């Protein structure tokens, strides 16, 4: 539909729908809904906005995920933490791992009390280590509404509001199915917008375009670990369903039937990426028997959906595969967290889920969804709780409300950005395996030259119309994200976790630090020493 009105960058912002809240949550996936429920539980007035629909939006809803759910038995907890330690390049923080395990255990048990249909093991013991996305997120929407949270669906946020001190003061955006605008004045804001998968069509990921990273950075928020952003997931060629786990039962071959040397879903994905740069690669789940197939079909029905629809029996037939970019969604980089309540460096602004750095529990590599799921529900809970306390302090206080959005907001007065061209130009730098998966200093610098030039070209430009505002801001967010990623990747002159440098293939223990990044016109890089591990973690 055509939208004739415009958002003007004026001192007293206004919109078709204006609301006041203690806490505004941006994003309605697992992290956002847990944040909203936690904030409402503390007595805050909460509004949650989702670009799509809270309940179906994001990487979790169409999928299924393991959860890092470990009963509070010291031996099992110790083992759970240790098993991740080296995988994550020793950049995780044991204290955060421990509190995430505690909070996840409590939250998953809440899900059971709320009626989530956990199966049992045949002897009456419940199995709570995985969640079906559609069931989980339908329940979370129901609980969010029951908590009294006001939900605005189909309402992308295009910019944050700030006050005269620089603290966050709400956000503004569009109601894309109504053709008008919204604005929420809030004492605190939780960014729960997910990571950035660069519109790769990986399952559920096309709403995850780094929007929240851009919003936060425009207020001066910092990022951490953005070099850990090279996640790719396996899928049927031309498809979207990225459930890589079942490929553990696969063998990989070229079109002529000869094996792909070194290929494996775990520990051999680089070999597949290298092969795919020039040839097609085929998989067949020939290491699974009929009973395993039965278990697989029940556990992840959507894995089989595209295969069934294409008429392929993956257990007996070879089918072509691809690797789809998941970027920071299954990477670990995101907004930098500075306290236990998931505050960012901007007063009143909190981050949760994939929008926040997951280095705290995963270091340089996640390996799978279970840690991200645990992090989403834990960090969401903490961010919502602390945002409630902060936000309520602003009740009744008079503040000035100023728009904080930069490049690409709809104003109608400036030169317009061609959103589609911008998106394609960013994808050309971040999607190719040989640029992002297998990195080199030369290719990173080469890409950064073009990405920085793109930014110079658009940093004072705007959306073509309010209709185009969402698409334009997505392109701007992807561009900003790609520059933090590659600048961070260039600064880490070693290979650690998922960050692989051809020119520095070894780990360098002089680089046990977190890479901090920020800035839009000028991207800057800093370093923060990784926390010293506690004895008990290294003991087992």
């Amino acid at each position, binding site marked *: 539909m055509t939208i004739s009105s415009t958002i003007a960058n004026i001192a007293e912002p206004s919109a078709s729908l204006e609301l006041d809240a203690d806490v505004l949550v941006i994003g309605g996936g697992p992290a956002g809904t847990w944040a909203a429920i936690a904030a409402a539980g503390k007595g805050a007035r909460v509004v949650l906005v989702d670009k799509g629909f809270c309940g179906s939006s994001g990487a979790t809803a169409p999928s299924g995920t393991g959860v890092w759910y470990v009963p509070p038995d010291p031996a099992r907890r110790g083992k759970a933490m240790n098993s991740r330690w080296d995988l994550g390049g020793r950049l995780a923080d044991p204290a955060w791992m421990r509190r995430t395990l505690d909070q996840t255990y409590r939250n998953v048990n809440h899900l059971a009390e709320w009626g989530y249909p956990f199966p049992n093991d045949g002897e009456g013991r419940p199995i709570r280590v995985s969640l079906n996305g559609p069931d989980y997120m339908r329940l979370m929407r129901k609980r969010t509404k029951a908590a009294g949270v006001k939900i605005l669906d189909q309402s992308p946020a295009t910019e944050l509001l700030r006050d005269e001190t620089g603290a966050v003061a709400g956000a503004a955006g569009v109601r894309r199915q109504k053709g008008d605008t919204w604005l929420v004045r809030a004492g605190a804001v939780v960014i729960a917008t997910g990571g950035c998968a660069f519109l790769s*069509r990986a*399952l*559920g990921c096309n709403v995850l375009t780094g929007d929240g990273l851009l919003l936060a950075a425009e207020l001066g928020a910092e990022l951490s670990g953005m070099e850990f952003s090279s996640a790719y997931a396996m899928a049927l060629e031309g*498809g979207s369903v990225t459930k890589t786990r079942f490929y553990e039962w696969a063998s990989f071959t070229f079109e002529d039937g000869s094996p792909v040397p070194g290929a494996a879903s775990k520990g051999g994905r680089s070999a597949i990426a290298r092969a795919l740069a020039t040839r097609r690669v085929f998989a067949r789940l020939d290491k699974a028997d009929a009973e*395993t197939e039965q*278990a697989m079909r029940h556990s992840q029905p959507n894995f089989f959906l595209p295969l069934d629809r*294409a008429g392929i029996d993956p257990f007996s037939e070879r089918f072509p595969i691809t690797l789809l970019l998941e970027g920071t969604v299954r990477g670990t980089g995101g907004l930098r967290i500075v306290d236990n309540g998931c505050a960012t460096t901007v007063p009143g602004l909190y981050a949760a889920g994939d929008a926040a750095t997951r280095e705290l529990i995963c270091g340089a590599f996640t390996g799978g969804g279970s840690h991200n799921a645990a992090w989403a529900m834990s960090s969401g809970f903490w961010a919502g709780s602390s945002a409630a306390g902060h936000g309520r302090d602003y009740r009744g206080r008079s503040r000035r409300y100023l728009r904080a959005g930069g490049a690409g907001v709809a104003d109608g007065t400036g030169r317009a950005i061609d959103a589609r061209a911008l998106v394609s130009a960013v994808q050309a730098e971040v999607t190719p395996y040989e640029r992002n998966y297998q990195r080199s200093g030369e290719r990173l610098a080469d890409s950064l030259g073009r990405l920085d030039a793109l930014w110079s070209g658009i940093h004072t430009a705007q959306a073509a119309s309010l209709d185009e505002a969402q698409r334009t801001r997505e392109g701007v967010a992807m561009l900003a994200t790609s520059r933090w990623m590659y600048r961070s990747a260039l600064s880490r002159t070693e290979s650690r976790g998922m960050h692989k440098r051809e020119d520095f293939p070894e780990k360098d223990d002089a680089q046990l630090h977190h890479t901090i990044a920020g800035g839009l016109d000028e991207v800057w890089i800093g370093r923060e020493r990784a926390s010293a591990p506690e004895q008990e973690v290294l003991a087992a």
Partner: protein
Amino acid sequence: MIEVISEDRCTSCNICVNICPTNVFDAVKGGIPLIARQDDCQTCFMCEAYCPEDALYVAQKADGVTGVTAAALEEQGAFGSYRRSIGWTKEGRTRPAPEIMSRLDHH
């Protein structure tokens, strides 16, 4: 991507319009929804899961169309197959025995 809305099955409830994460559909007054922005479809299958009439079909290709028709899908019994596989039906779904499910644990 989303390819078919069955005119015979659709009751114009517009649930798909509301729940689509990427805003692919437009509601149409007095008619069934329109696939207005097919290119924006991310092939997440959520519209199929949420459709109470099993009127929608998302083909497996995320990067183009297959040209599948409603008539062919009716013949194959393909409408509603995703909803059945996740147990979003009255019948629900049955979990295989624990010893079968445990085949996934120790690989």
